[in-house]
């Protein structure tokens, strides 16, 4: 293993996690907000769909995504012929898979944060003439910073550590879809334990540091409140 290959894999891993987290922040906040306020009868159905990746084996999700992305099928063909790109075995395919797979890790903390706020805060903002979006961004979200941070970090860390979905839909193309967790598996298969350890150690340290940061920052948030 060359240094260049190692760094290419690491950069790819964190790029995937960063892009996934960013996209999920935009999807997760509105989803969590809607789930926290709705009284609709289909709420349990939406909650189930959002939570499915928590319990579903990653290979199941990966399998169906693989089938869907395949140019043999309608969605894959649409992407390739109309939009002009292929999702299967590509970076953006990985991003889409990761977004679906990590959705509950972003939605759950934000949803429970929003639900823990007294309803009177929303009502007070309404009485002051504020729209829903102003209320969300200026009153609700600033008061659930610990939940937001938890959502962001857990999503990031979870995407870094993802294996099953990535393997199914991404394969193992260096610099394109070969992320650290795949690389570890691959190096072990080749009995290349030193290289595997190299990857594993970096993942271990980074994950530890990220979580440590969350707990320290959250503690200072809570002390301020």
């Amino acid at each position: 293993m060359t240094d260049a290959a190692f760094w290419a894999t690491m950069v790819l891993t964190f790029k995937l996690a960063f892009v996934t987290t960013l996209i999920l922040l935009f999807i997760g906040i509105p989803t969590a907000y809607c789930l926290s306020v709705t009284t609709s009868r289909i709420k349990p159905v939406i909650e189930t769909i959002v939570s499915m990746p928590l319990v579903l084996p990653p290979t199941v999700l990966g399998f169906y995504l693989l089938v869907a992305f395949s140019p043999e099928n309608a969605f894959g063909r649409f992407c390739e012929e109309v939009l002009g790109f292929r999702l299967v075995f590509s970076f953006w395919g990985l991003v889409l898979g990761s977004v679906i797979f990590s959705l509950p890790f972003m939605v759950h903390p934000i949803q429970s944060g929003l639900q823990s706020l007294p309803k009177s805060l929303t009502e007070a903002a309404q009485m002051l003439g504020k729209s829903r979006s102003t209320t969300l961004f200026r009153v609700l979200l600033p008061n659930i910073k610990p939940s937001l941070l938890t959502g962001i970090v857990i999503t990031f860390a979870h995407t870094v550590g993802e294996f099953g979905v990535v393997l199914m839909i991404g394969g193992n193309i260096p610099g394109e879809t070969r992320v650290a967790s795949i690389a570890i598996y691959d190096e072990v298969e080749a009995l290349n334990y030193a290289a595997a350890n190299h990857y594993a150690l970096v993942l271990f340290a980074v994950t530890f540091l990220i979580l440590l940061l969350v707990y320290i920052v959250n503690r200072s948030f809570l002390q301020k409140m």
Partner: protein
Amino acid sequence: MVEIDASKRLHSAEDDIKLRVSASFKRGDFVAFFGASGAGKTTILRMIAGLLRPDSGRIAVDGEVWFDSRERVDLPPQKREVGFVFQDYALFPNMSVEENLRFALQKGDNPSIVDELIETVGLGAFASRYPSALSGGQRQRVAMARALVRRPKILLLDEPLSALDHTMRSKLQEELADIHRRFGLTTVLVSHDPSEIFRLCNYVFKIEGGSVKKEGSPSELFVKERIGSSFKFTGEVLSIERCEMVYLLSVAIGTQIVKIMATKKEREGLKIGSRIQIVSKAFHPMIFKIES
């Protein structure tokens, strides 16, 4: 003129009650909805504010229709020009006192009203503090000031002083009355405390069984019911001593033990352990101020 005629089915813990309220009052009035907890007082406020939709009815303020089930009018809370002081104050924890008030400014409002209101409620020294660093009384004042930033047509107060101790409560009652006068407000108070209503309001609606059972000035409503010309205490006789021509009773009233003189006639039929009622006329009591 504020006219409310609204009905709403409520699901409470015990049973479903049908709230059917019709009440009207003038601009500048300080009115109260009075009743036991669970009677639906807060529901009425929430319907006026637009936070809760009546099943049917009509709510109009100064001729402007805010809700009408037949005409299908239902103004959202943002458009109703109402100030609402919540029971838990609902201050935004992420904003300082000043920011809480500034948040209430609408586009084009003159921001000087914020400083003016902070001074009015005497919180000039606390403007940059966060709600978590304020006392209950101070939070109440911030909630009050914030509700006034929009210069509302009606100010709604949902048991605003219930979480405060006695001294603070009576101080804030004075301030409330003062603010009501100074800003020329129409104020609606929800309360279960007759003395509070007596001090503040000029008109009371008594809510019982889901509708307005009685209405009138506080003295009309409470004098007959609650305020009599005599004191009554019930107590238990602990001992009976004979003392020349009369008897001395030791009576336990609440946590106090009192010695009371009784005539021979009054003593008849009493024995240790008897429950008795002691009545005294209220026209010649001695009154001492309790220093606080």
